């Protein structure tokens, strides 16, 4: 079947094309070669390795079927890391999206200085997650951090290097801080798409500003919110490896060991290859499900939007 569908799902007339026979193969060759060597080959290896177990000296490996998966899924450390990842992802998404929505709604209200506000709000997007983590750790480090000093002045025994909850709060703050600008831009775009006539009609009917927001604007933002929820979850799952690695190293204890950090740690530091590969495959399944959800959303937007 041929795809004469454009992105909006409208059927186009058959395209006018060039008749060359070998040129198109040359054109796709670079991307295809890189994709096969660096995507499909390693992915195949990960799938294969997830069903092997090596002896302690790394000399022989034997086929064990799904035993690695059973072992990983029964491992309390892995279950703990699932819990850590859930808490971390949800908290990051809620904080980053809540702040961004508030700022976007306020930015819609002001007339003066709109452009300046936007410029000043978007730059954390350019900061690497790992650096964001280090900046926050610098502020909140118990020995030299100025804000940690202020917290101690308030009588809070703040120590993210020893207290797991404090470490998690620090990670969530850094991760959410970095993501506010991204969410802000999408919420602004979403708010601009809300028909002004609807809001005016509600105002004429006597609905106050707060009521107008929760009954009209917020429901109409649902597609944007849902889309951002998926994007933020993927961000918190994968892109924040740098934050965890640079700030806490999974500690104290294993209180901040996320799934991606554990794959890295088991594979590169502890060298348990079979387990690490099985964890990789589980992560792949999670990404594929999230991507599928995201595409369902795109489809919905096309039909109703």
């Amino acid at each position, binding site marked *: 079947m041929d795809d004469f569908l454009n992105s909006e799902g409208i059927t186009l007339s058959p395209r006018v094309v060039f008749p060359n026979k070998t040129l198109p*193969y040359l054109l796709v060759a670079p991307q295809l070669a890189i994709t096969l060597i660096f995507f499909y080959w390693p992915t195949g290896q990960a799938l294969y390795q997830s069903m092997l177990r090596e002896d302690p000296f790394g000399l022989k490996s034997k086929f064990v079927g799904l035993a690695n998966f059973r072992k990983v899924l029964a491992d309390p450390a892995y279950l703990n890391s699932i819990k850590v990842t859930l808490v971390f992802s949800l908290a990051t998404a809620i904080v980053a999206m809540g702040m961004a929505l508030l700022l976007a709604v*306020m930015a819609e209200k002001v007339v003066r200085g709109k452009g300046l506000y936007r410029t000043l709000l978007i730059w954390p997007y350019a900061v690497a997650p790992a650096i964001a983590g280090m900046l926050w750790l610098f502020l909140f480090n118990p020995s030299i951090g*100025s804000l940690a000093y202020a917290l101690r002045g308030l009588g809070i025994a703040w120590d993210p290097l020893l207290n797991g909850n404090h470490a998690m709060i620090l990670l969530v703050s850094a991760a959410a801080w970095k993501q506010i600008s991204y969410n802000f831009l999408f919420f602004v775009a979403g708010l601009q798409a809300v028909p002004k006539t609807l809001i005016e009609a509600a105002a004429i009917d006597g609905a106050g500003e707060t009521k107008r927001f929760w009954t009209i604007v917020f429901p109409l933002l649902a597609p944007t919110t849902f889309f951002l929820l998926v994007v933020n979850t993927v961000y918190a799952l994968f892109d924040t490896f740098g934050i965890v690695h640079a700030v806490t190293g999974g500690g104290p204890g294993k209180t901040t060991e996320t799934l991606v950090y554990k794959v890295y740690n088991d594979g590169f530091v502890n060298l348990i290859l079979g387990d690490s590969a099985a964890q990789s495959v589980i992560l792949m399944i999670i990404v594929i499900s999230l991507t599928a959800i995201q595409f369902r959303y795109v489809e919905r937007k096309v039909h109703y939007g």
Partner: protein
Amino acid sequence: MIGQSPLRTVIAHAVLILGILIVAFPIYYTFVASTQTLQTILRPPLPLLPGDQFWTNYSEALFGGVGRIGGVSVGRLLLNTTVMALGIAVGKIFISILSAYAIVFFRFPLRMVFFWLIFITLMLPVEVRILPTYKVMVDLGMIDTYAGLIIPLIASATATLLFRQFFMTIPGELVEAARVDGAGPWRFFFDILLPLSRTNIAALFVILFIYGWTQYLWPLLVTNSNDMNTIVIALRKMVSFADADTQWHLVMVTAMLAILPPILIVVLMQRWFVRGLVDSEK
């Protein structure tokens, strides 16, 4: 238009200013710290205004070499990171525009197979296949090379999909007219398609440059030697909260230099950046 009470406008401005303070504070404070002596940094709280060590600290970091990362100068780290970010941005745009061109403007056997092979890579971020990809790098001798930092990251589907989507909006008449006038596929590509794609290329460039600049896991894996590190990785190596001889003033200078180039790109190319961000997620 609905009228708004002045009080609400004031509240809106206040909330926005508070938001900007939260967003800007960590970066501002890093700048302040980068202009202080090590002794001042080690005794919190830090003053709220910049100190007088700007030239001393910045020239020491840029040209002097930093002890903890094997004496490599920050200049060298900036060079590595720039090469990586530019390589990823240019390389990705180059291979994606070619393959999207083939998929949209030619008909050939296996076309859709190729398209799906590329499309599925959307679902396989580096993070889920760390170890086997690392092994491929070792086998190909690409550890500690620029090629190793760049090539595995340039093959992803997002740019290809974006170009494909844009190419599909180009009317068939344009292709027909070009063919009637005797233009071959290369002529069409360079004289018509490329100029039309300028905005898309600019938007993608901003997004990809920042993507390349902020990479962490990949450069952590494929660089062992200090002088091949990117600035983000080197910064991580310079920081140790456990021991007392972290050179904080140099760490802060490095952090500033690591975040300044991508921030400048975002702010100066804001229009393309916003467009690229919103488009590439569609």
